Each structure stands twice: as structure tokens, then as C-alpha cells.
């Protein structure tokens, strides 16, 4: 395990040095975003010279950036008003759901995607069900899953539904897109059918798989609010957003949204790191 992580810090510093200018651009862009946000808030609050005071109805819907930042920082040290949990607890609860939902989706989507990609018959068999369930918005499943599967598994399966389909389609596309020339080359090098699958098809599919993972994770986080609307034992960031919006505490709600954004970046980042390690391993194994 150590071998995986040592060299990571050196790689990080190297990446930093190479990309400093782009990082600077990103920083400036984010700063500009915060400024525009502040301006819009000021406008809604009527604090700007040409402010619209009679829009006071909607002023609180666009709180000032520092109000949100303050609320975000406070949420870690103050219990929230309705579940009496710290933001740390919410993050833990949501991370558990995302991780389990992701793991289930991975275990289901990867083999199925590979099968559907390589076997026309399998694709024909699985297609009707896949196409039937794919367009259903995860939100629609909320009441059914919560009652049928309970408060623990309901939200997890909700997250699963969000991640499963993008992952499946990515893997299937990857399996279909294997360069036939590579398969020819493998055959002339003595590979049998199983070896062609494990040593050519699988590695070819990995980039598509990783894209599917990243897209799937993003969608999983998008589902988390719907998933944690009901049940939500132990709270969760999605629950936090839903609850604070209900009582009109939009400052807290935005803090919750920012938290999800950060967590999404974190999980995608971890996926990216794993991807790099995986490629290295595939190259030299």
C-alpha cells in the first residue's frame, strides 16, 4: 500500500509546478465568480446604489458570499437546528451512502457492460429492461425505495440508480470500441479467447470505465438530495440542504450545497488518482 502513495507528494508538487499558470487562471476565475455573486446579492439586498428594495422577498435567496462561508464554517462546530448534528456527521452519513451506492453500481454495471459490449445476444436480452428504467428520474423512486427497502437501504439504492446507468453505458461503449486490430495482433501473438478478454478487451475498456466512474460519481452526488429527502437515518448533506430549504434558512442551504460541491470534487479527485495508479500498473505489470 505504501508503494502506492509514496511518490504521490512528489508527483503532486511536480504537477503544481507544471500547471501553476493554469491554476492561477482558475483562481482568478473563482475570484471573479465570488465578486459577481457579491454584486448580485448586493443588488437583491438593495445595498447597491441602484438597488431594488422591493425585491426584499427574494433577498435572502441570494445571501452574500461571506454569509454562506460563515454558515459553512459554523456548521462544523454548531449543531444544525433540526437534526442537531454537526456537518461532520452529515458528511459521514452521505459519504457512507455514496460509497456503498457506488460499490454496488460498480459491481453490477461493469460485468453487465462488458457482456453487453461484447455479446450481441446479451445486449438484446438486457436492452429492454435497461432502456425502460434508464430515463426514470431517481426522484421518482424515493417513496417506493424508502418504504420497500427501509431507511438504511432506500437512500443507498437511490444513489445506486443514479450511478448505475452512466457507468453501464460507458463500460459498454468501451467494450464495443476495442480496436479490432489489437485483437488481431493479440491472436497472432498466441492469445486464446480468455486472454484476449483479460489482456486486450479489459485494458482497452479502462479509460471508458474511468470516465463512467467520474460521471457516475457526479450524478450520485446530484441524487443525494433526493436520496436523503425521506428516511435519511443519521442525517446527510442532502438531508441538510432539503431541511434548511424547508425552513427558509437559505444561508445554511447554500453552505450545504457548497459542501456537496467540495465532496464531489474530492471523490472525483480520488477517482482520478486511482486512475493514474491503475494506468501505471497496467503499463508495467
Amino acid at each position, binding site marked *: 500500500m505504501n508503494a502506492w502513495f509514496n511518490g504521490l507528494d512528489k508527483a503532486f508538487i511536480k504537477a503544481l509546478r507544471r500547471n501553476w499558470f493554469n491554476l492561477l487562471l482558475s483562481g482568478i476565475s473563482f475570484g471573479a465568480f465570488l465578486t459577481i455573486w457579491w454584486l448580485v446579492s448586493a443588488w437583491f439586498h438593495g445595498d447597491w446604489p441602484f438597488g431594488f428594495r422591493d425585491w426584499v422577498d427574494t433577498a435572502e435567496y441570494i445571501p452574500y458570499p461571506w454569509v454562506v462561508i460563515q454558515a459553512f464554517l459554523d456548521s462544523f462546530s454548531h449543531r444544525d437546528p433540526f437534526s442537531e448534528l454537526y456537518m461532520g456527521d452529515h458528511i459521514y452519513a452521505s459519504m457512507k451512502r455514496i460509497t456503498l451506492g457506488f460499490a454496488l453500481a460498480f459491481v453490477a454495471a461493469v460485468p453487465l457492460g462488458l457482456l453487453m459490449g461484447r455479446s450481441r445476444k446479451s445486449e438484446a436480452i438486457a436492452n429492454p429492461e435497461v432502456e425502460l428504467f434508464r430515463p426514470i428520474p431517481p426522484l421518482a423512486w424515493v417513496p417506493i425505495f424508502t418504504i420497500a427497502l427501509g431507511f438504511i437501504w432506500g437512500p443507498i439504492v437511490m444513489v445506486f440508480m443514479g450511478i448505475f446507468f452512466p457507468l453501464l453505458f460507458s463500460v459498454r461503449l468501451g467494450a464495443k470500441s476495442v*480496436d479490432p*486490430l*489489437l485483437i*488481431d*495482433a*493479440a*491472436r*497472432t*501473438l*498466441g*492469445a*486464446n479467447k480468455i*486472454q484476449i478478454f483479460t*489482456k*486486450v478487451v479489459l*485494458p*482497452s475498456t*479502462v479509460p471508458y470505465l474511468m470516465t463512467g466512474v467520474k460521471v457516475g460519481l457526479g450524478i450520485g452526488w446530484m441524487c443525494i438530495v433526493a436520496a436523503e429527502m425521506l428516511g435519511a437515518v443519521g442525517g446527510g448533506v442532502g438531508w441538510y440542504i432539503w431541511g434548511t430549504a424547508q425552513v427558509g434558512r437559505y444561508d445554511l442551504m447554500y453552505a450545504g450545497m457548497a459542501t456537496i460541491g467540495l465532496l464531489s470534487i474530492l471523490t472525483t479527485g480520488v477517482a482520478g488518482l486511482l486512475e493514474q495508479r491503475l*494506468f501505471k500498473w*497496467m*503499463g*508495467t*505489470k
Partner: protein
Amino acid sequence: MDGDQVGASIRIQGLSKVFTEGNRSVNALADFSLEVRNGEFICLLGPSGCGKTTVLRIVAGLESKSAGSVVVKGREVVSAGSNRGMVFQEFALFPWRTVRRNIEFGLDMSQVPLQKRQEISSKLIDLVGLRGFEDAHPRQLSGGMRQRVGIARALANDPAVLLMDEPFGSLDAQTRNLMQRELLRIWEATKKTILFVTHSVDEAVFLADRIVIMTARPGKVREIIDVGLPRPRDRTSREFISVRGKVLLELDEEFEKARAKEMAQRAPARAASAQ
């Protein structure tokens, strides 16, 4: 390297291949016969669509035959196998593997242990002149270097024959010339039997012991020309130019025939009077 010093490495007799797509069928090859002796360098030359790549793929076992027999080293060709190595025009390297690991692919398939694998791949890396690039990925290499990997990889299983499908077609002129000389060097070091498909007359005359000129579709052998020149060959020498001329003559005639046939297919009424 192979014990069989006597007799043909490749014996093709009456090979024919028909491709059917829906209700259309194409006679790619008809009664193609060829004998390649052990350690020979043979070039297959012919107009586009004459089926030269098809011959190669059938010998490799990547394509099935419609009729005839194909025997390599005394064994009938049924499917692809490690005794026939292939080098592709588009290189077909595994992008996720390093140079060394690409070369070792065939050895992985037959589960050669680590020590031996690395011994063999190291030798091949030196042979094709890629020392220092063992841990690079294909995307970091130039076209010429990639094909060196392709050649080394095909040689790793110590195949009886090496099948090369326009291997230098994707390279620029300078690199191409260089690679031709490199290939001859490698060939002389390994003494492999090589079946080489090309478009280029110049390339064929430079490389081959014998040049097999194919007819237009359906392909069969039109003429086999024995180059008969000692290597290294001088492209500007009188003898070289003379052989080249002979080959070109045959080819041009075949081109004309192919064109005439095409026109005939398009205007059967006019063809009838031309006959």
C-alpha cells in the same frame, strides 16, 4: 533458428477466397499458389484490391479460406497462432503497455516466467535498437520507433515466419528508407522467413529475394521475379534500375487489365464489341 532447413516454410496451393456481404460476393483470390523457402524474403506486389493483404491474413490465420490449402512448416493453417508473427501497417501496439511489456506480450500468453521474459525482451530491444526506451509508452514514440517495437514484438515468440503487411506504409520517406535497412539487418541476424506485402516497387526490389507480382482481382500469381542482386543493394545502380523496370512493366500491364475490366463492368455493351 528453426531446425527445418530443407523444404518450404510456406506452401500455398490453389488458394481462393470469396467475400460475401449480403447478396454481393467478391472473388478476392482465385487459385493462388506460392512456395516460400526457409529463410527467404518474399515480397507480394500488386495493384490495389488484388488480394495481397488477404493472402497474408489467411496465412496468419486471421481470415478463413474458401478453398485450397495453406501449410506452414508442415502444419495446415487453421487459426492464428504464435508460430506466425505479424507486423501491421498501423503498428497495433497496446497503448497501455510500455515498450518492453508490448514486446513481452506473446511471452505473457505462453506464460514464460519473469526472468526468461526479461532476458528475451532485452535481447530484442537491443536488436531493434530501442535501448533506453524500454519504459516509454507507444504514444511517446515516433512512427519508426513504434514499428521497431512491432517487429520486436512479433519476433518474441520466435515464430517460424514473419508476416508484414505494408509495415512502412505509415512512415515518411526518410524513415522508411532507414527502416528498410534496419529490417534487412534484423533479418540477417534472425534468419527468419519473411512474407512482405507492399505497394512500392522500389521497396520490393530493395528488400526481396523474389518478388511475387499478383494479378488484379481475383488475385493469383502473375509473375515471380527473382531479384538476384547481392545486398546491400544500390538503388542507383544499373542492375537495380533494370529489375525495377521489369517489375514496373508487369505491374503496369496488370493495372491496365484491371482498368479495362472495371470499364467492362460498367458498360457491358461496349465491352462485347471490344472482345
